[in-house]
């Protein structure tokens, strides 16, 4: 089975994340880049499926040069090779452009299964997997907390408000996974060393038949008009519990008409 796992480098949540004042896009230099946490579950799921069914796991990322760190991490976990879509023309791409560019690469490299994390911790739109399924015309098997493949059939459990749906499809398919679907492995020393020798193919937009007029900030379908630091919340009242903390909190809730 030919599995492509999409990973994204995101700014570390633990550091201060900023937008750039010149073009309102994410300031990638302001914070340390880390692998999007939910993508680690995607990599793990891809590796487990490969271990069970054979095949190959390719890491795909779109992002600037420093995103190679993210690729190395996924390779160290055990992925076989990587494709890095990197081009200045992609800067400022929104979800529509990103899904277009990624879909073009996926069409070029081919796949039976595409796996992603259900959202990124920076933009948090949660739309990319659905958009890829739409653009590729394949089954959308998203928000999965369980994935089973048998021959060319695939079944997932899709998380819903009321519990979950059992969903089935025929490969090829796009799968997104939620936290806790598995326990992502830590790269071993051997894995980290091996990752250095694994092939990483870097593509510019022209290499994947990506139309420059469909990507980047100028082509984006949506835009950030302006932004500002959120005003700090007005300092609240903090009391120490002297045996009446619950009653005092009840007084507060009553003053706000919650009770």
């Amino acid at each position, binding site marked *: 089975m030919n599995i492509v796992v999409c990973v994204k480098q995101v700014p570390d949540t633990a550091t201060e994340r900023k937008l750039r004042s010149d073009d309102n896009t994410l300031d990638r230099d302001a914070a340390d880049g880390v692998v999007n946490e939910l993508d680690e579950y995607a990599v793990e799921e891809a590796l487990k499926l490969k271990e069970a069914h054979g095949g190959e796991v390719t890491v795909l990322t779109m992002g600037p040069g420093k995103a190679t760190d993210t690729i190395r991490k996924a390779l160290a976990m055990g992925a076989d090779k990587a494709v890095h879509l990197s081009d200045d023309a992609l800067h400022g791409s929104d979800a529509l452009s990103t899904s277009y560019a990624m879909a073009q690469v996926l069409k070029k490299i081919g796949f039976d299964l595409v796996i992603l994390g259900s959202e990124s911790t920076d933009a948090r739109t949660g739309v990319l997997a659905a958009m890829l399924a739409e653009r590729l015309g394949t089954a959308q098997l998203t928000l999965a907390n369980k994935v089973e493949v048998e021959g060319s059939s695939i079944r997932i459990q899709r998380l819903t408000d009321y519990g979950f749906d059992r969903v089935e499809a025929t490969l090829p398919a796009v799968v997104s996974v939620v936290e806790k679907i598995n326990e992502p492995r830590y790269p071993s020393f051997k894995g980290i060393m091996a990752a250095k020798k694994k092939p990483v193919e870097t593509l510019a937009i022209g290499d994947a038949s990506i139309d420059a007029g469909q990507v980047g900030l100028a082509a984006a379908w949506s835009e950030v008009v302006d932004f500002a630091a959120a005003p700090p919340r007005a300092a609240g009242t903090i009391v120490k519990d002297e045996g009446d903390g*619950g*009653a005092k909190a009840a007084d507060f809730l009553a003053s706000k008409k919650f009770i």
Partner: protein
Amino acid sequence: MSEILVLVDHAEGEVKKVTLELLTLARTLGTPAAVWAGPGITADAKARLAEYGAEKIYVAGADDIVEYVVAPKAELLAQLVAAKSPAAVLVAATAEGKEVAGRLAIKTDSGVITDAVGLGEGFVADQSIFGGGINVHSRVRKGTPIVAVRPNSTAPVAAAGAGTEEEITVTLSDAAKAARVVERVKQEKGARPELTEAAIVVSGGRGVGSAENFSVIEGLADALGAAVGASRAATDAGWYPHQFQVGQTGKTVSPQLYIAAGISGAIQHRAGMQTAKTIVAINKDPEAPIFELADYGVVGDLHQVVPQLTEEINKRK
């Protein structure tokens, strides 16, 4: 005024509160038209949609709309966008709502905004990003604005609309039928409201100490008619099911009142609750960052404070 399509969020024939919020919001920007996807619309549901301002109710009642994952709803809306030329399309910013919005954006060559917490003139959306640290105004530049709005972004206000019903038939493409729902498994959630929709959320964290002790959190939630949430520390420890996790990798909630008990307030948690209107924190550690957000905080042992609060609430009812 031009029509604004509102995709109705419904379960077991009932319209969810978020839809009433979206209709209220749509009234400020145009003429709301509700879109009901799937079978099971009831007279009560129609009356509810009209009560909150739906001038039209488009009903696509065929079974196949809900037999496949997401794509049929996007095809339905795309067909309506082509036929009715609405000024915008609003959906609830639930995980599925956002997926519908994403596919619809591609089908209609339109921009999409997700997780709006407000929407103003020219469909300029308010968003709160990076764990609530930055407020953003954003807008769609191409096509029909498609906006996924977070539950609890606005208070639903009734104002009757005509509620004229129109039946819609959609012929689904083969691609829309690629992922088939073979079974829906409903997990017991009791009488509590849904976490993302609830007006009040009571969450417990590491300080709760055990799965059994979550009954203290549930007791307070039930006294307030609230949903129960949990921090990642609590779900990682296995004290509460993962689907109730509030935070960056879990659910994002925006309730009127959020009560955090035994939660320190790490950025990962704040990302999921910082847009709550009123925040109450109960924590033993006076240095816990959650107190920086709290409108009211009690420094103390939640195992003393929370039961007392619950008792007081029940007494005052």
